[in-house]
């Protein structure tokens, strides 16, 4: 019988922060497109988790964090247009690419950022959690509290929209 709770153990809590903070920061960023807001929200969410550590077992802590962050977002930033800017992971550079090709790639990349930002929120978050955080559909479903089927539909829909919108511009 255990009276204490792992979540209240500061060493475990800090390790948990190191494991989860980036995913949560990304999630709030996908939602809000605002890095400062993402940092504040993540800070506040972890503080609330710490305050409630005794009643949140470690296996529930992740879902507590995402719920808290979602509610904080709902309270503060409503109906704001989202503009996301992505970095690109360094890719192996191919030699002898002609300037025109490089230009096209650059334009494509800019279009992609814009079109992703304009996706409906649920599709955008689901899609980016898969593409950037490399989460499996099952893992995304767990975090967002929806079925795996719903995740797959959103990904499918997001790809349809992206292709259509990129073709249009």
């Amino acid at each position, binding site marked *: 019988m255990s009276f204490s709770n792992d979540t209240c153990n500061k060493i475990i809590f800090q390790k948990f922060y190191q494991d989860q903070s980036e995913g949560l920061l990304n999630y709030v960023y996908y939602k809000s497109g605002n890095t400062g807001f993402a940092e504040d929200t993540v*800070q506040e969410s972890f503080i609330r988790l710490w305050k409630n550590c005794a009643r949140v077992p470690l296996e529930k802590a992740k879902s507590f964090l995402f719920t808290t962050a979602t*509610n904080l977002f709902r309270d503060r930033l409503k109906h704001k247009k989202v503009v996301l800017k992505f970095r690109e992971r360094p890719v192996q550079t191919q030699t002898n690419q002609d300037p025109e090709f490089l230009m096209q790639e650059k334009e494509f990349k800019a279009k992609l950022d814009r079109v992703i930002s304009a996706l409906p929120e649920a599709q955008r978050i689901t899609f980016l959690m898969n593409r*950037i955080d490399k989460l499996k559909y099952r893992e995304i479903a767990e975090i967002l509290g929806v079925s795996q089927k719903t995740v797959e539909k959103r990904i*499918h829909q997001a790809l349809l929209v992206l292709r259509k919108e990129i073709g249009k511009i």
Partner: protein
Amino acid sequence: MSDLFKDDDTFLARWLSGELSPQELAEFEKSDAYREYQKIANHTSNLDTPQWDTQKIWNQIEGDESNIVAKKETKLVRMGWITYAIAGCALLVLGYLTLFNTNSIQLHETFATQNETIHLPDGSVVYLNAGSSLQYNTKTFPEQRNLDLKGEAFFEVTKGSAFKVKTDHGDVRVLGTSFNIKSRVERFEVQCFTGSVGVSSLGSAEIQLLKGEKVEAQKGKLQNKSQFNALEGTPVWRNGQSRFNNVLVIEVLNEMERQFDIEIKANPTIENIENYSGGFDHNNLESALQIVCSSINCTYVIDGTSVRITQND
């Protein structure tokens, strides 16, 4: 558009995760669209988010909450001492924990579409509507029945000492009664179903409500009391409905987002239409939209979890 996945709304997701059958894949690769999807998939797999300074945020978490962190650490030391005591006397430990338990804040939160029924230690029951949160201190609650509410909830309070609900807009104080509080960004409203309720807000003195009376706040000030139908004994949201009387349309749209877990896009002219009266059932998004649009003359398009509303000319 390829006919390949005309009726299959997860085809591209399964393609992206490499779950298509060889036949499906071969067929897809022959299509014109394939190359474009491949390009999108390649590019998006190389995207990355801004560089986060997680150490800085951690320092702020520790710094901001230094008091709490210090308290918890003391508790951990005590826990170590307790571990020895467990061997000797489990009962002593239980008593000790009851006395020194500092982690006593109980928090209940609901997502969009979720409702929650909360049984409080004094036998009172709280029904939490979607997108809301309720918080109280389990340690002090038996003496001081204080709660913090964000959002909307219906309370059935057992008789006893004063029972106080604090919200961002104002406080509600009762002895034993049932009442509904709606404390959303754009609205503060309290309805009394049985007994009596005292409502106060920052800018106003306390107002007493009796059964069948309600009061709302505008710009922080409580308005005159008015009557509502309390005969059903419970607010309509508990029967899966939302009703509005003379409100801004934005308020209706926000409630729809909470009840259906959708995102509504509408321009400010629609959101700011005044004097809307009507309502919707929580089980059918389509008919909810039809009802609202028929009275304000708008058109809606549902796209997955997103809804776009435009005004008709």
